């Protein structure tokens, strides 16, 4: 049922989960997708082997609030900064960009300096990721 005061209605958080580059591991991203769904979010999953251009076009068409990039190959250092650059160029640089997977600490620091909000390495509890997104959502 719709409400007569729609501006007070809580909006549903929309998240894009994508895998960049050539890695074909899907278990991690599937687990995260389910956790976000169980937390009441709408998760757009766009599949494997995405290019930065595909991720950005998808993020725009889907008007997601959060872009989560899973990387289990070394492609993140090339592709992630490109995603951020393209989002800014399209005038939608206000999305929360997070990354997860096998990302060495020093790479993580570099990525954060380039605009990735947080990097969740292997072994992170899914609840931590959910809370991180919810906290960001509450303060924006």
């Amino acid at each position: 049922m719709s409400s007569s005061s729609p501006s007070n209605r809580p909006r549903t958080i929309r998240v894009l989960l994508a895998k960049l580059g050539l890695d074909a591991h899907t278990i991690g991203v599937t687990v995260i997708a389910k956790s976000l769904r169980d937390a009441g979010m709408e998760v757009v999953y766009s599949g494997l082997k995405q290019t930065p251009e595909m991720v950005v076009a998808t993020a725009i068409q889907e008007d997601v609030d959060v872009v989560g990039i899973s990387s289990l190959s070394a492609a993140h250092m090339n592709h992630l900064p490109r995603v951020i650059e393209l989002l800014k160029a399209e005038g939608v640089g206000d999305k929360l960009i997070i990354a997860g997977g096998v990302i060495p600490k020093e790479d993580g620091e570099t990525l954060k300096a380039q605009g990735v909000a947080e990097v969740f390495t292997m072994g992170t509890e899914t609840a931590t990721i959910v809370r991180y997104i919810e906290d960001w959502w509450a303060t924006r």
Partner: protein
Amino acid sequence: MGNALADKVLAGHVPSAARVIRRLEDGDAEGRDALTALYPHSGKAQIIGVTGPPGAGKSTLVDRLITAFRKRDKRVGVIAIDPTSPFSGGAILGDRVRMQSHAADSGVFIRSMATRGQLGGLARAADDATVVLDAMGFDLILIETVGVGQDEVDVIKLAHTTVVVCLPGTGDEVQAIKAGVMEAADLFVLNKADLPGADEAESHLATLLHLEMNDREWERRLVRTVAEKGEGVAELCDAVVAHDVYLRTSDAFTSRSAARARHSLFERLRELALERAIDGIERSEELQHVLGAVTRRETDPYVGAARLWQALKN
């Protein structure tokens, strides 16, 4: 009256169109204001519903149809619907996985949408999203429903052309006849037609079509496809175009558009009426009396509802 967001949509600005759809989906006034400005620019696109049971290959077929229509220089909008979890309110929207190759094509706009509690195979905002994409100049808008059972055919109320996707080996003639889905179709697709049982399924469907065909102006067609391999997709594409030609050369496009408008109007009226009525009733003292009486089983829910309605009118 001008609307800045709507002007950007009309100029083809994709982020603005996505934002309007989002606001409409969230039931936000900003979205409705933009829709008011966009609505007069809509009404041109052929809206094509693609429905069928889970696993029938709807997403793959939509993907192949996009390719085929892009080759014919058509701009294609897609609204792909997946179910919302009734437990968490969240959803995993995975239809895009099979449509990846179109992600960076500016002639294609794909929006995944969760049902958010709406029954019937659609999302509430699917109707609004077609208006936005139509006003933006997309020639065709494909609505892919959630995987449906037998009577979830709301897509026919939005679509000019309804495509029902079937599979071999999923039911006998009786199963097919009782299904409302069968009556909904303008075009049937027998997908995965390389599977065992395809010939039997085709003859069953053909018989059904033949039985029902008499009083219809449009001769409903059955197309065999193997979407995964692209087989039969050109024929399906031709059939969709043929249906569009039929619609526009008869008065069917006008009459279906009128039925669509009536449906949209009454849906919004129903929401508004319900919202206003519930609002009023929740604030009335009578509610507590009636609720108490129904709980104590002194009054039944029909009589109770009538009393509340009367109280609202006074």
